[in-house]
């Protein structure tokens, strides 16, 4: 279990993240959404260990993060940032292999082959990283992150991702999220920041909605799919439309004035 108790982040002028409690269990995907400036990145940094929290505790499998060395932390969690640059002519395979730096797996070749197959980049493995497109690079980074926690272990591991779908087209977006679904069966818990409510709705088990540093909702996805709630969080009219074909709720938002007009008309 990845738990955060009472973590917060304040600067001199303002509170970026107010006291927050959170739990991520292995085998579950939690999506974090919210408007820009809500504090998602700050929360992410506190959970990943990049920033230290002045009060409150983040713990992985019961171990306080501040007491873990970088190597020990790397054994329980892997992080995919939004942007990554590689300044040297590494090949794709070399980049993916970097994920195993702190891990001593029994069979590294097998792991690398598997994660590259999963991310559908095996055909690129001999190429140089800088020659790839934005989408391909993101999949390589994902592959590397997966390699870090791919080996099966008796204890839970966690993967934290910051907008892993930002440069990807529709097909690739779904491909990535499908991969995250597969992680559930490997004793891995997933925390992912997303911008697309629909994607979150389709793949995540739980959702955390942040606004101005405060949690507006944290719980099962079903409970988060509430028009009033979503409108409050995003400051924009939102309609949830039930699609009979897929039996799913679709999140719809459009130009403000139109919505208000049609709402008024209906009243």
């Amino acid at each position: 279990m990845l738990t955060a108790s009472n973590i917060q982040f304040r600067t001199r002028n303002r509170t970026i993240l107010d006291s927050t409690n959170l739990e991520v269990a292995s085998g579950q995907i939690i999506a974090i959404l919210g408007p820009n400036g809500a504090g998602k990145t700050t929360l992410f940094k506190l959970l990943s260990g990049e920033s230290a929290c002045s009060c409150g505790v983040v713990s992985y499998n019961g171990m306080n993060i501040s007491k873990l060395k970088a190597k020990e932390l790397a054994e329980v969690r892997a992080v995919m940032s939004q942007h990554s640059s590689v300044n040297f002519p590494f090949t794709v395979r070399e980049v993916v292999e970097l994920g195993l730096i702190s891990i001593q797996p029994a069979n590294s070749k097998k792991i690398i082959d598997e994660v590259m197959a999963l991310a559908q980049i095996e055909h690129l493995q001999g190429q140089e990283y800088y020659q790839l497109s934005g989408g391909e690079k993101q999949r390589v980074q994902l592959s590397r992150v997966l390699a870090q926690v791919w080996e099966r272990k008796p204890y839970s591991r966690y993967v934290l991702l910051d907008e892993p779908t930002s440069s990807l087209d529709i097909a690739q977006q779904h491909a990535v999220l499908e991969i995250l679904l597969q992680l559930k069966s490997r004793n891995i818990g997933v925390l992912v920041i997303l911008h697309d409510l629909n994607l979150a709705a389709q793949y995540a088990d739980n959702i955390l909605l942040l606004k101005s540093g405060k949690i507006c909702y944290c719980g099962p996805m079903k409970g988060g799919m509430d028009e009033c709630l979503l409108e409050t969080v995003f400051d924009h009219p939102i309609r949830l439309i039930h699609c009979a074909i897929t039996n799913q709720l679709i999140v719809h938002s459009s130009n403000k004035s139109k919505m208000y007009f049609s709402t008024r008309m209906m009243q």
Partner: protein
Amino acid sequence: MIAPTLTFSKQRLSQWVLVSLGAILVGVLLLSLTKGAYPISLSQVIAALVEPLGYHLEAFEVMSANVLLQIRLPRILLAVLVGGGLGIAGAAMQGLFRNPLVEPGLIGVSSGSALFAVVFLVVFPGIASSFPILERVSLPLFSFLGGLISVFAVYHLGANKESENTATIILAGVAINALAGALIGLTLFYADDTALRSFTFWSLGDLSGASWNKLPIAAGLICIPSIVLLRGSKNLNALALGEKEAFYMGVNVNRTKVILLVSTALIVGVAVSLTGMIGFVGLIVPHLMRISFGADHRLVLPGSFLLGAILLNFSDLLARTIAIPAEMPIGVITSLLGAPFFMGLIYNLKK
């Protein structure tokens, strides 16, 4: 570029590369032993080398043996140490700064070391003559201090956690080079002591002062940090993705940075205190390694040591045979090779 698709053969390839470079180095060393102002043939070289072991060959000739063993051999070994040290330090710096344009001379580490070496010789002139052993250790270490301050200064001025900032790093280096250069010139201008050596020595480098009593300390102070750097190769690979990513992958970033900075500064400081500033070796050599064999630091670093040793020996060979009986300053040769190479690099970056 050779891009192996299997980990297994990549390791084999690395070993072959290093063995080949080692063989080339030995070849260059033998060549260097036979060339120089004083004519010594290969048979005389061999005779001179086996004589101390007890085998007397006909080709043995006293004077050539003396020249070979007392003047030429220490010089060649010094070139191996300094060339190798500068090569591996350049490779490590490029990895640390995540920037392929970085090298000890360009970013001011060499000039910072030279400044402190010159200041040491001015402030403690007595030590040189009264305590030769102390001087042999304290001069390189003081020089190291200068290099350390420079490298930390450049790192804090120029390097940035998130983004690449080539311009700032190079500019920081330019500033330090200018300041150190001016201060060196100033010190040499006012101090009137032949022990200070000339401005040409410091700014263009000179291997002719090599002698056996300088080598052991040099060897220790260059080889040991080189081994430390080799062990950090894996971490350098991780750092190539960024400090944040390296942390996520389990690298203790701060400790790694400090170790890298200190080790490279030590190598450069020691090298500069012995031979003055020799530029461009640390720039050319890691590049050649990378474009030929890939960017994996586990091969780039040891390869850079060997290739640097080869390059500097070869350059020194040219320096002392082009204008017999005089010698061209070695920095002239490395700059003539390195500056066009540097311009080519910049041109390629534009594309």
